[in-house]
């Protein structure tokens, strides 16, 4: 059961969010509240604004109207607030975006040392701890270019965790991976979910959504048009567009999702 927002101050609270790219209205009156520890999966056809929405949460995209409050801090133009929020919000990207000139370990300790000013020794200990958790401690001294896609994405997860974030955002973390590597990344994400991390995840992995999500949010055309518990959403989507979308991705994605 998802926790209701009233139990606690919500981890993320988005109210009447609007965003335009030039004249193009990409996000239209989006409202979303994510409680602490809640796992929300955002899905929808490409171009529906789901990536844009989660990129607004750590200000990689600027919104023009509405409010976003993360961990009690409202996102404004104020750089200090943006920095504070980014420190508490980790983000995973579709193409990993590890720093290729640094080793895996250096990737992991960079932000703790330079942003949180953690002593290097301590940062290394933390990094090794998380690298063990994503099951690649033996790759610590390699460069990202020497790792497979799945390994890189797991390093990216460890790199985020080293900052000890309160919220993690996932922007299609498995879309750029070969099929045989998707599982290793999803397994780590499931582990992470079990630790009680607040997660907002844009993904097409419906199997993952079923096992992990407290709630599924379906977007189309820049709007949230359906929001439900995963079982109910997959069993009986309420809107025609959601039905159509699920029909399309499940018809030939069934094997992958069920695997």
């Amino acid at each position, binding site marked *: 059961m998802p926790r209701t927002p009233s139990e606690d101050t919500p981890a993320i609270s988005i109210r009447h969010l609007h965003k335009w790219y030039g004249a193009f209205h990409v996000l239209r009156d989006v409202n979303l509240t994510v409680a602490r520890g809640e796992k929300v999966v955002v899905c929808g056809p490409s171009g529906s604004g789901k990536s844009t929405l989660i990129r607004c949460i750590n200000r990689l995209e600027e919104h023009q109207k509405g409010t976003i409050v993360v961990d009690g801090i409202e996102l404004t133009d104020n750089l200090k607030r943006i920095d504070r929020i980014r420190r508490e919000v980790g983000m995973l990207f579709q193409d990993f975006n590890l720093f290729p000139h640094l080793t895996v370990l250096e990737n992991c300790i*960079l932000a703790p040392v330079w*942003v949180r000013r953690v002593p290097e020794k301590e940062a290394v200990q933390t990094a090794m701890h998380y690298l063990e958790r994503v099951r690649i401690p033996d790759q610590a001294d390699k460069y990202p270019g020497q790792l497979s896609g799945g390994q890189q994405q797991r390093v990216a997860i460890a790199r985020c965790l080293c900052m000890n974030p309160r919220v993690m955002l996932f922007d299609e973390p498995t879309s750029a991976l070969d099929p045989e590597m998707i599982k290793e990344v999803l397994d780590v994400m499931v582990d992470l979910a079990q630790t009680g991390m607040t997660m907002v995840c844009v993904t097409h992995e419906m199997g993952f959504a079923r096992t992990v999500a407290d709630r599924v949010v379906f977007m189309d055309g820049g709007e949230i048009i359906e929001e439900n518990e995963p079982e109910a959403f997959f069993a009986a989507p309420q809107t025609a567009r959601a039905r159509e979308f699920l029909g399309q991705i499940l018809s030939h994605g069934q094997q992958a999702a069920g695997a």
Partner: protein
Amino acid sequence: MYVKHERHPELPPPPSELGALGWLRHNLFSSWGNALLTVASVALLCWTIPPVLRWAVLDATWLGDTRDACLDSAGACWVFIKVRLGMLAYGFYPQAERWRIDLFFLLLVAGGGPLVLGSLLPRRGPARTLATRGLAAAGAGLALVLHGLLPGLLAAAYLGLPSLLARLRAPAAPGAAAKLGLALLAGVAVHALAPQGVALAAGWTALTLTALVLLVPRADEQGWRLALLLTALPALGAVLFLGDGTWLPEVETDRWGGMFLSLVIALVGIATSLPVGILLALGRRSSLPVIRTLSICYIELIRGVPLISVLFMASVMLPLTLPDGMHVDKLLRALVGVSLFYAAYMAEVVRGGLQGIGRGQYEAAQSLGLSYPKAMILVIMPQALRLVIPGITNTFLGLMKDTTLVAVINLMDLLGVIKSALADSQWLGFTKEAYLFAALAFWVLCFGLSRFALHLERRLRYEKH
């Protein structure tokens, strides 16, 4: 249906692909046209090299101290270079004070050498420590033997400082800004107490070092060596070259000359054009319209005019605009001119590198909470600069050779000194030797730089370790 159960065995390549014969076939005689070219090239070399060799080495005069030694030889007269070597190297810098220049370059080699060596030797292991420490010890020893006790001590202090500093733990007090302020205050205090000469250099060094110690959370020996090379050594150089009037007699810059002056201009140009160029490149890509416009205007304006005209402007026009009695040293004006000129070129090279870095890298850095400067210094610039090492090297080489243009504003660089040496009525007619020597000197410097850059490029290729 077809099923294959056994793997095909691995076979060696055919003999025509292997050995010296294979190499010759591939590289020199791969086709009729190529074979013809090979033969023609060998013939050309056989035709041109022997006479040059005969003139420059076999028939040349190496011994003697006067012009008479060369009278009955058909080859080059290297005696001229030998006799004038001091002037070619130091210009009109007073004989008794030339050790100061030697000491500086000794420190440069012994202090910067480990950085080069460090990148040549494996990252871990005793060889690197031994080589870098050995070089430092040798530098200090050489200074002691050649220049006496005080210079020896100075060299030992400078060269030993990096390993000392690396052992210091940075104090973990909060507030980088407060620390920087403190360091600035300390620096200003030192400057106020002793406004010139040795004390000024000491103050500058103290200031920059304090700032570095306080601001940088971690730096190893090599890091400190680089930091000292960029902060303390220039200050030391300025005092050594100029003198402070009490311990070291002052030497006016119009007596500086020769290879020394060329090197000073090249080093200052290289050391300032890169950072200024980086700032200009960032400015040009800034989202703030004022900064962007100013950067674009500066870059396009400077790239649109020849260096000679910049030098002329700095030398002739600038004094006219300055108020009476205010005097800016001619060398300083040339230095500023060369640096700012090359900064514009550097900016475009760096911008090329920045464009090679994907948006994802910026976003990853941002999402981890790195501020703009930190993201640039730690994530973007290391990648962007590595990408454009060939372009940076190119610009540096151009700068090095363009230092000869300062001759047009009557600075006595290597070419200027050669011109005045050739005008000596006792030594008329040795133009070939003099300019060949100059060409050789520049070639050695430029070739060394280009080889080092090439090596650095390979060393920093992180995709395939």
